[in-house]
């Protein structure tokens, strides 16, 4: 039997050492040692990797910037589009509210037939209070038809073309409306003015008129149907020496924000001009 050679012994020792190292590693006894060995490599790799990534960012940043700018423009366009949609929707909400109020008004006054129209302009002259609406004789409008809003009386049609009409507001200096005061039942005349304020004249001295009384159309004169609300009395001027009382009226309609109005199409104004006695006539 031949004795083991030196090479065999060397191999066996190496195997034992490897097995021992593996056993020690599995047992966790080599962790501090491995940490010591690995740490410099990790540090070096981290340093190298950081520098590489920085360099890569610098090289690719121009492309990113372009892409970001493009994306920013797209997003800004999207925001503008959405804002415009929001404005449209808000406008639609406002219009819906106005129309719903007008429908409610028409439901409460079933005796009249209504036609809605939008205000598209105001008279170029600041001396008169007229508005232009987008309905005309093609829609069956005629001069003299009363114009109301969901709150109350606004005016009447003064002139008509095929596709548009001019409406004289009750605030016009030339406007006069026969009215009735509630609860006293007194008759008076509502007058417009240069500033758009409304006032009452020709209130009998004997009538009991108070602040807060309601002003409604009386229907006298044939220009407007009766019982349409106009406003409330805010102050009364009464002097013993005057023939009549006067009063200021706060209208229920906000004439600075008129957008949509209703036209009472089944009302025909009555021309009482021939019945008014003229001086010298038999």
């Amino acid at each position: 039997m031949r004795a083991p050679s030196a090479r065999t012994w060397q191999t066996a020792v190496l195997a034992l050492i490897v097995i021992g190292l593996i056993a020690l590693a599995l047992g966790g006894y080599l962790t501090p040692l491995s940490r010591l060995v690995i740490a410099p490599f990790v540090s070096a790799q981290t340093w190298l990797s950081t520098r590489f990534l920085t360099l890569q960012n610098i090289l690719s940043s121009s492309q990113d910037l372009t892409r970001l700018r493009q994306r920013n423009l797209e997003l800004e366009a999207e925001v503008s589009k959405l804002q415009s949609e929001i404005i449209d929707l808000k406008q639609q909400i406002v219009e819906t509210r106005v129309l719903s109020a007008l429908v409610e008004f028409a439901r409460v006054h079933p005796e009249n037939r209504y036609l809605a129209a939008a205000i598209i302009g105001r008279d170029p002259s600041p001396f008169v209070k007229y508005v232009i609406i987008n309905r005309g004789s093609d829609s069956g409008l005629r001069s003299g038809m009363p114009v109301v809003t969901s709150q109350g009386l606004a005016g009447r049609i003064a002139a008509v073309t095929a596709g548009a009409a001019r409406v004289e507001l009750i605030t016009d200096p030339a406007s006069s409306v026969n009215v009735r005061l509630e609860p006293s039942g007194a008759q008076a005349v509502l007058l417009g003015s240069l500033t758009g304020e409304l006032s009452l004249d020709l209130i009998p001295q004997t009538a009991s008129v108070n602040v807060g009384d309601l002003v409604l159309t009386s229907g006298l004169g044939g220009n407007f149907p009766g019982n349409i609300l106009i406003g409330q009395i805010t102050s009364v001027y009464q002097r013993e020496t005057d023939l009549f009382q006067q009063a200021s009226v706060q209208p229920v309609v906000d004439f600075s924000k008129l957008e949509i109005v209703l036209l009472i199409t089944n009302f025909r104004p009555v021309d009482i001009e021939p019945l008014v006695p003229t001086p010298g006539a038999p």
Partner: protein
Amino acid sequence: MATLLAFPILGILLVLQTAILSQIPLLQGTTDLVLLAVVAWSLQRRVQTAWQWGIIGGLLVGFVSAVPFVVYVVGYLLAVGFSLLLRQRIWQVPLLAMFIATFFGTLVIHLATLVALRVSGIVLPLGASINLIILPSILLNLLLALPFFTLLSDLANFLYPEELEM
């Protein structure tokens, strides 16, 4: 050509005036864009269609307004006549002429309106009319006089290019 151009230009200005500017008053006064355009056009040196612009502007505004249309036709023609007079007298300072013509043009049209309304039975208080309408309207028109003069000057230079001597 320049006369026909009055229809779209004055028409657009009238639409702007009735739809937007009439709803932005200063006290009760408002801007008169058509008057400004007519006056600025009349003050341009080579323009020969000033009277036509005055008539067209007057008819357009008179058709839309409840004020008798004669007021605007006569008022704009008076403003054109006054502007042409100023163009001859103070041609060296066209901007000054623009301001003066705007001032007197606005005044004439508003006074003519007052007279016409009085004739038709609507008596407006003169003091309130001056304080609440005439003076604020003059101020608004004077504020817009300069940009209008510049715009109409560019238009006149485009339509009537200066002849160069060779």
